[in-house]
């Protein structure tokens, strides 16, 4: 109960607001029944109310909200009018919801009464259907299987629209419609079966070439499939299916004039000869090579594997102690050697026993160690495999998007080609479940604001059909989802005006902001406005919610844009939420874990360099102001840090979330490791700045810090903490353009930021070939290159540069992990001007060398020295 109370308290404000909004929308509807905006708003809020009721396990209220939803849907479909009777019933409902809010009691009788009053209204237009009684236990399986069918049909239809002659797709859709029909009829859902049957007829006609794949046919099939999907939804909620099959059936039938709408399904008939016998058996007797497992059970399994891993760590440390005891024993035995002359005759027997015991201790501990190592390997594999089960392809979400894009593009009158790539990339199921909404929101935005109408595009010399490109890929421990559109881009100057106009920022404050910083404004809460967002894109959520949603999944979202050309969103997400790679640190006597995706580097900073800059503690690092905060104080603990390290240096871990960077003072770094994420127990579900906990090998609990929350918790203060270029300390020399060639993303980015911080302009290339291409297109002042790279290595690149008349004098600096003398010689032989080894990599050294090569005596702005990377 306490858990529910906690949840109730957490949710009740949102719930109250949803109710208020719903109430307000109904009032507006009452005065103007044609007001679509209010109708949409009412539906949306009602949906929230339903969600709340379901989360609070108040099924009666959930059911009521659901029926209300049906009512509103019927109104929106024009099936009946919003009149006074109806309004009264809905307001009565609101009273009941409010009652629950006040007392947490469900007035069951009154709810039932109200349901009884409303249902007849609905069922005059919609029929209800129940499963045959003996089939009820099969209901969940049926729903799951049928949803798969509906999903597959949807996917197939989307592909079919693009590729109407593909018989493979038609067969696939047909197969699914067929199997849906079969299972619906078996369950006793006659009307659903009938609807699927009509669908089947149309598909067969298409298959036979009697019916062309026209937009009209596709629309009718889509609509039917939607109707099937709605039926399944209602079935899942109420065990009764509300069937509204007439209109879909009529539309389908109109495609095939020879089929009567009222014709009874020919259930008993043998399957038509169109289908090959082998296919029939494939659909009716599905191969049992997979099982459905509830996610709760799966999570339990993963948890247990995590437990086993933790227990294993403890076992390993006990085995270690045993091995040390064994070693001491061996040393003792060698040293004493139990020289016979010093032993009394009577003691020999017990000494022999003692030695025997020692031998068996040795033998046993050796075997134990072996066994422990073995177990450890198995447990690791177990953990890995069970984690993999949670991993699902992004296709499950991506496949639903083409349909959304199709509908939205029609709605907005845009012409779009939607490309999806990398949908096989797998990701944690929990992330998968929650990434759909942010993606849809971004797509809506793109279609609504980003992409111009065909006329505008034509006028500005673009192809009428715009391109939206959705791409997923895995890079290291992260999954990157990129959404690009070739629309009009985001006008960052306009963003600035809006933000200033809304009082979100101060005009003076932003006058030096870079374009990237200005683009960040769209993520500010309260930024989305009616002047920027239309009714559809504005569905209650702004970009701040998109960012919050992504950050809740421990991910990040970034935006870049070229005005008039494109907008690009990059969402980076962890591959799994079950474990995280973290840096273990010590602070005020506590061990804390910081996820490495939030860390850019660790530094040792001379204490005296931490000084007030623009009113807060900071250091100048690589030409930027890096705000410094005490982690202890940020966590609200009131003791001091452990003090500076030796030689007056402080240990700083630099963290980043979005554009924001802060260095935290810590006491010690204990190392990096993969940790299992646990929650803080039901009571402490929402502790600020804490993302969860993990259990250390010692059995202690260590907290996992929520860096984005820690950095974003005080927006006003933090906004000023955005690093700014320090003009007096850095003299950006815009005349020098450097090409950085490096295949490792991280190193590439690091080198790029180091050089940019020192004032150079930087272009990057991923390998030697890529670099040569860029050298052909543009002229550079210097090249920094890695050696080991795919396609073309750094030696070959250097040689190519030297052999080319145009680039033979171009300075080349080699930065590599190959530190053998021979490699160094070879590097200089092929004509490199400098050779730096990564392991002893020093930023200032690099900048100095580059400065020298460019004939520049000194590059300023290196206030601190890095120890990271």
């Amino acid at each position, binding site marked *: *109960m*306490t*858990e*529910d*109370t*906690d949840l109730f*308290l957490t949710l009740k404000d949102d719930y109250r607001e949803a109710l208020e909004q719903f109430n307000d929308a109904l009032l507006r509807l009452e005065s103007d029944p044609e007001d679509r905006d209010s109708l949409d708003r009412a539906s949306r809020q009602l949906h929230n109310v339903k969600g709340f009721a379901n989360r609070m396990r108040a099924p009666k209220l959930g059911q009521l909200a659901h029926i209300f939803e049906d009512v509103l849907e019927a109104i929106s479909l024009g099936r009946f009018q919003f009149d006074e009777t109806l309004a009264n019933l809905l307001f009565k409902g609101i009273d009941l919801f409010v009652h629950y809010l006040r007392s947490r009691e469900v007035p069951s009788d009154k709810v039932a009464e109200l349901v009884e009053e409303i249902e007849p209204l609905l069922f005059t237009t919609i029929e209800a259907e129940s499963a045959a009684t003996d089939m009820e236990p099969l209901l969940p399986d049926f729903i799951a299987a049928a949803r798969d069918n509906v999903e597959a049909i949807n996917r197939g239809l989307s592909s079919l629209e693009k590729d109407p002659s593909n018989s493979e797709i038609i067969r696939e859709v047909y197969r699914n419609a067929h199997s849906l029909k079969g299972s619906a009829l078996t369950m006793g859902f006659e009307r659903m079966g009938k609807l699927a049957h009509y669908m089947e007829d149309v598909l067969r006609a298409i298959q036979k070439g009697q019916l062309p794949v026209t937009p009209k046919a596709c629309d009718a099939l889509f609509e039917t499939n939607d109707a099937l999907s709605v039926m399944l939804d209602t079935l899942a909620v109420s065990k009764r299916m509300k069937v509204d099959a007439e209109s879909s059936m009529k539309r389908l039938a109109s495609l095939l004039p020879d089929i009567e709408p009222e014709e009874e399904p020919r259930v008993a008939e043998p399957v038509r000869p169109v289908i090959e016998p082998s296919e029939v058996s494939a659909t009716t007797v599905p191969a049992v090579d997979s099982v459905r497992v509830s996610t709760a059970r799966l999570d339990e399994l993963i948890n247990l594997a*995590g*437990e086993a891993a*933790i*227990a294993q760590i403890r076992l390993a440390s006990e085995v270690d102690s045993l091995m040390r005891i064994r070693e001491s024993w061996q040393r003792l035995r060698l040293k004493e050697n139990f020289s016979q002359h010093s032993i009394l005759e009577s003691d020999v027997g017990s000494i022999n026993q003692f030695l025997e015991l020692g031998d068996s201790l040795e033998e046993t501990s050796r075997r134990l160690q072996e066994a422990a190592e073995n177990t450890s390997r198995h447990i690791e594999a177990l953990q890995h495999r069970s984690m993999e089960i949670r991993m699902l392809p992004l296709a499950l979400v991506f496949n639903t998007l083409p349909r959304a894009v199709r509908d939205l593009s029609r709605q907005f009158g845009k012409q779009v080609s939607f490309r999806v790539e990398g949908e096989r990339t797998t990701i944690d199921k929990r992330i998968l479940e929650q990434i759909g909404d942010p993606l849809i929101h971004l797509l809506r935005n793109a279609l609504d604001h980003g992409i111009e109408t065909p006329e505008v595009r034509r006028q500005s010399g673009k192809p009428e059909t715009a391109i939206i490109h959705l791409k997923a890929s895995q890079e290291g421990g992260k999954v990157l989802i990129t959404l690009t559109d070739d629309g009009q881009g985001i006008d960052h100057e306009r963003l600035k005006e809006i933000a200033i106009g809304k009082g979100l920022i101060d005009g003076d404050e932003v006058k030096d902001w870079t374009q990237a910083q200005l683009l960040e404004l769209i993520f500010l809460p309260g930024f989305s406005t009616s002047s920027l967002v239309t009714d559809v894109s504005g569905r209650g959520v702004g970009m701040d919610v998109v960012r919050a949603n992504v950050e809740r999944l421990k991910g990040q979202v970034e935006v870049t844009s070229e005005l008039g050309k494109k907008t690009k969103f990059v969402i980076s997400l962890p591959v799994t939420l079950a474990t995280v790679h973290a840096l273990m640190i010590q602070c005020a006597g*506590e061990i804390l874990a910081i996820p490495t995706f939030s860390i850019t580097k660790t530094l040792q900073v001379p204490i005296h360099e931490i000084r007030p800059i623009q009113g807060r503690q900071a250091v100048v690092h690589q030409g930027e102001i890096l705000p410094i905060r005490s982690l202890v104080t940020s*966590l*609200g*603990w009131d003791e001091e840090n452990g003090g500076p390290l030796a030689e007056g240096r402080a240990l700083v871990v630099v963290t980043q979330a979005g554009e924001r960077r802060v260095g935290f003072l810590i006491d010690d770094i204990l190392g990096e490791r993969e940790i299992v994420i*646990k*929650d*803080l*127990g*039901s*009571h*402490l579900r*929402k*502790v*600020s*700045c*804490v993302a969860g*906990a993990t*259990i250390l090998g*010692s*059995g*202690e*609990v*260590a*907290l996992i810090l929520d860096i984005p929350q820690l950095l974003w918790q005080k927006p006003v203060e933090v906004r000023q903490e955005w690093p700014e270029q320090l003009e007096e300390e850095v003299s950006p020399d815009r005349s020098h353009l450097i090409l950085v060639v490096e295949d490792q993303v991280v190193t590439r980015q690091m080198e790029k930021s180091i050089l940019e911080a020192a004032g150079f302009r930087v272009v990057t290339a991923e390998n030697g070939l890529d670099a040569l291409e860029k050298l052909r297109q543009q002229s550079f002042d210097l090249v920094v290159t890695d050696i080991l790279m795919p396609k073309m290595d750094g030696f070959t690149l250097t040689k190519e540069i030297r052999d080319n008349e145009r680039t033979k004098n171009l300075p080349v600096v080699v930065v590599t992990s190959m530190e053998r003398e021979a490699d160094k010689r070879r590097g200089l032989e092929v004509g490199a001007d400098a050779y730096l080894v990564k392991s002893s990599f020093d930023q200032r050294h690099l900048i100095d060398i580059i400065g020298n090569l460019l004939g520049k005596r000194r590059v300023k702005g290196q206030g601190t020295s890095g120890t990271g990377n």
Partner: protein
Amino acid sequence: MPDFPSGPGKKILEQIRRAQQNQHAPVAKDSPQQQYLSFRLNEEWYALSVYQLVEVLPLPKITRVPSVPDHILGVMNLRGEVLSAIDLKKILGLPQETPAVTPSIVVVEEGGVRTGLLVDDIGDLVDLGLDDLTEEPLLTGKAQPAFFEGAAHWGGILLSVINLRGLLQAEGMYSPQG
């Protein structure tokens, strides 16, 4: 005559037993008896129904958690499960007197959620019937009547019987008030 099984607080029990022999101990008659675990906070004695008791542990390492109410000591590990640990003295508004010699964590379960309660010492199991709860519980400091079932006089010692649900569901228990 209630019986006293042996346990960690044997000494205390002896004390209770002796006190009981000297005085007219209340004798449970009709009402069904329930077992309670007795424990000490400063010099006062309290009791908890064993139905809600999971186990008793010597004080483990407790990890501090930022921005939680003062009476939440932090979180601890119970065989892989992360529990919150609560300082009962702070909830009841009792002064923090001399540090306990044998501090223990009493792990309880209420509404499917486990919580650890920090106590100064563990007594033993005692049997009480509802009829025995004749006394007023000790309403010290911040203690609210809803925190208690009642109290029983037990051989010269007042045992305040905790109502765990009332206690753990109190406003502001897990998040700062206001």
